[in-house]
């Protein structure tokens, strides 16, 4: 893959709690570039509030947040870092 191209990264944080999915999201953010899309899969219900707060605080876009096959899937687009 072209190193300069934007990427879609799937982060699987299912069955994780404490510190949980937000750790994986923060790690993925650290490795991302502007324009990248992060798809976070989680089962911890706390993730809903956390990704909303994360997107608001960091100025990144929460594209969608939905329940899919027993998991909570958040799609985030990196606009700032």
């Amino acid at each position, binding site marked *: 893959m072209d190193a300069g191209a934007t990427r879609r990264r799937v982060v699987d*944080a299912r*069955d*994780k*709690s*404490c*510190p*949980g999915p*937000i*750790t994986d999201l*923060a*790690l993925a*953010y*650290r*490795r991302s570039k502007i324009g990248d899309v992060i798809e976070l899969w989680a089962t*911890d*219900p*706390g993730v*809903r*509030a*956390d990704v909303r*707060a*994360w997107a608001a*605080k*960091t*100025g990144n876009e929460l594209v969608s947040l939905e329940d899919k096959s027993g998991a909570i899937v958040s799609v985030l687009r990196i606009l*700032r*870092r």
Partner: protein
Amino acid sequence: MGGVLILGGGTGGTLLANMLARRGIEITVVSESPEHLFQPALLYIALAGAGADIVRDERALLAKRVRFARERIVRVNLAAHRAEAASGARFDYDSLVVATGARAEPAQIPGLAEIAERYGNYHSGITAAQKLWKALDSFRGGTVAVGQASPICVCPPSPVEGVLLIDKLLRRRWLRSKSRLIFFTPFPRTYPAEPINEIVEPLLKARGIEVKTFFDVDRVEPASRTIFSIEGERIDCDLPIIVPPVCGADVAYEPDGALNADRFIAVDKKTLRIKDTDSAYAIGDATDLPTSKAGAGAHLQAKTVFRELMGEPAEFNGRTHCAFDLGNGTGTFVISSYSAPAVRYPPTRIKRLMKMLMGRVYWLSLSGLFETIFNWYFSWTAPERLAARWPRFWRRANR
């Protein structure tokens, strides 16, 4: 040579070796260091000026029949069942257990190695801890910033414990009114697990400690002591106390799919078997397990692998049991498992005392002779059981 090869003579490796030795199994422990460090005490060396008697000779902690080699492993061939040391020494095995822990790597963050060199920290050994105590000793007021540089750190309570102990120290020295204390964290709240945060957040508030959430360290400017976050914020301070990022040991694995980007070993979260192998396991801080990196986890995982190697059915249930010193004479534990979120376990003086006693009990516990007591203790404090005992403290972070 065959038998069980254990890489790393720390908490998990030492306990497992001693448990297996008692069953007459042939065991070799290979470890980089001839010494064994009780890491939790670094907190008190750095932030309370405690003595540094926290090291024992590893050979003396191992049962006599365990073969011990002081070597630094650089390569493991999982297909050929062979580990190689930097010296060229080779170790063949029937079963392998990797317990090489995690290491602090400040260089991952620009500017952090220089900060660590100048001010020390409490996650990189005795010298760094003593350096931090010196820096605190000459501090006469100003801004102190405390936090973790990366979302993954060994002993998740330790960043908050650090800021609470510094607050205590500054008060004792009549410096608190001349100081601003800032706690930064990459998480949405002071402590990532909500039930524990409900205990911790009011404590920091009551002590006037400022909290900056979603602050993920991007780089540090050593000259001005400015910490910048990926999120675009900055903290200017006089004394930066930063828990460095961690990664796995510098060992190459074949096939290399066994390691993740931070060199942690990919294992099955229940069997602890290294992915795509039949007789290789990893335990403790060395793994990519989705639980806290802490001594209690290494202990319980050692026990799971012990049973598996003995041919008994066993599964690791993701149990955590992290001691938390709240800096006010009380303490609690962060207790959870794969199936149970952290319990809001009421802080008491006894729980803090238990953390202090662990410094003594630790060396005895490595013998594996007290497993009956530990079994009883861990089942008595199982998260489901605590929840039933204190229903009103039991909350799921379901917002």
